[in-house]
């Protein structure tokens, strides 16, 4: 119910905002981009795997689509879908290589992979080198329509997330996150589920990157593979509340809007706040904003019945 109302409000937003304040519609579109990245990052995190470089797949999607549309004449919409699929395929390959090992190796490999993609893109001539690429537009000069497209992508990601959380996959993911050895003994194909989660996660990141390329009309290796994208994708779910659909969305809205005000004051150093939030949340509120909410609700509930609420959660962030 609440979800449907929220969706209706989000879909109505462009018709209300566009006439009076295009700036806010642009901001809303940026929020949705971060929201898709956050949600897809969280999907992978549910298996206990830490990707420090979601930007790798964002950039891969952006460059795949940009190159296909400019160099091979592929239509923009097809380019965006292929961008997502390219990210999926590469993630599956990288996953098969690195997800057999301890989580640390995977985290290191993702970070190194992202930096290396940047180097390759910068060095090659057909990717436009460090100067970047100009891309053909998706739905030219129609911000409300562009907004609805990314809202659709977000909806797809949210549905995927809910499906995962309500199916048997949920138990597999949680078991793997809690204890891989035990999960394997229970008959869960640990590597397969981790690779699957990684591939789905990368698909949405690639799709969003490709969308970004055709809405902002220009990409370069420094922005497409930027640390800011990776950091935003992981701080939002941690801040909002991990392993849920609503938590990453909540975090994305709060952080992206906060970032807008900070950028003006701190310039490119605004990421400092993300570092602070990350450290503070891990140390003091490992269940994020959503955790604060459920704890408060539990206290209220307990107050009515006159019993003390158990403190929920034990820092499984």
């Amino acid at each position, binding site marked *: 119910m609440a979800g449907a109302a929220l969706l209706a409000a989000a879909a109505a937003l462009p018709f209300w905002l566009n006439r009076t304040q295009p700036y806010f519609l642009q901001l809303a579109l940026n929020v949705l981009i971060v929201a898709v990245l956050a949600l897809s990052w969280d999907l992978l*995190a549910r298996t*206990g795997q*830490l990707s*420090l470089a979601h930007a790798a797949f964002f950039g891969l999607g952006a460059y795949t689509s940009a190159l296909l549309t400019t160099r091979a004449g592929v239509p923009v919409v097809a380019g965006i879908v292929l961008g997502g699929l390219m990210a999926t395929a590469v993630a599956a390959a990288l996953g098969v*290589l*690195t997800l057999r*090992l*301890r*989580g*640390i*190796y995977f*985290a*290191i*490999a993702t*970070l*190194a*992979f992202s*930096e*290396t993609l940047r*180097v*390759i893109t*910068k*060095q090659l001539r057909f990717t436009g080198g460090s100067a970047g690429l100009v891309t053909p537009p998706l739905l030219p000069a129609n911000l409300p329509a562009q907004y609805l497209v990314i809202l659709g992508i977000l909806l797809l990601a949210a549905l995927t997330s809910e499906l995962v959380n309500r199916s048997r996959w949920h138990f597999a993911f949680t078991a793997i996150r809690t204890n891989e050895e035990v999960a394997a003994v229970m008959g869960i194909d640990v590597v397969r589920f981790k690779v699957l989660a990684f591939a789905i996660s990368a698909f949405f990141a690639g799709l969003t990157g490709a969308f970004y390329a055709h809405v902002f009309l220009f990409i370069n290796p420094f922005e497409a593979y930027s*640390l800011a994208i990776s*950091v935003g994708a*992981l701080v939002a779910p*941690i801040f909002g509340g991990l392993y849920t659909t609503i938590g990453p969305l909540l975090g994305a809205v709060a952080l992206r809007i906060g970032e807008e005000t900070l950028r003006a004051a*701190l*310039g*490119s*150093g*605004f*990421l*400092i706040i*993300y*570092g*602070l*939030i*990350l*450290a503070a949340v*891990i*140390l003091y509120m*490992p269940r994020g904003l959503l955790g604060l909410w459920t704890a408060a609700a539990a206290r209220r509930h307990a107050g009515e019945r006159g019993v003390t609420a158990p403190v929920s959660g034990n*820092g*499984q*962030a």
Partner: protein
Amino acid sequence: MAIFGVLRSGLYSLASVGLALSVGVIGVVNFAHGEFLMLGAYLGYWLFASYGIDPLAAIPIGAVALFLLGGAVHRLGIQRVLRSPELNQMLLTFGISIFLQNLAIILWGGDPRTAAVGYKAQSVALGPFTVGFPQLVVFAVAMTLTLSLYAILGGSRIGKAMRAVAQNRVGASLIGIEVDRIYLLTFGLSTALAGMAGLMIALQLSTSPFIGLLYTLKAFAIIVMAGLGNITGVIYASLVLGLSEAFVEFYVPQGGGWAEGVFFVLILVVLLVRPRGLFR
């Protein structure tokens, strides 16, 4: 070519041995390692620019300053997540890394800074080769410091305690080693080593807020090659990285740019072929 690779590996050893130490003894993978190195490099730059102190003379200052900073970070943060899931530990150090990098951007701006010591452009003949004097000095200092760490770990009481904790935390505490204190000392030592490597970077190269991530990644490549937690393998692994980079720079067209990606290829190859490391 080989000689440049070897000279470079000295700095790589010093830059990564601290990370190997914290991984090996505490079991914490510190994604902020490069940022401590970056802070050391800025310290070297400022001491030179403001007081004319040569980065070589600043080594004790840098070591003490970064030891204290590392100790504080351990007390306030790392110590609290030692029993948390690995995911939390990595996220915390990643958060510290982002914080320090952007603090540097805000405080000092993004421009690279160079400590222009008098002998920066001098070179020495080494047999048939000519190499920069700063490179040679940095190599000598870095190797001396790295080997001193090996001596400390091998011989002193504190070093033996560290190795004991690395092998078995519970066993070590049973025979009367204060594990928490060893962790604190180890983390401080690890950041002090990063800080000294930073001073050497201020001397030989230049510093900017962005060098941290690059050295973190190169240090990762080295400790993955050495095998996580293997401290003595760091020197050999650094040689592999230094030589490979020098090789790419010399023999590949536009090699200067491609060399920045060598560390990733090495990480990937090691993970594929021999994930427990090449040197154990």
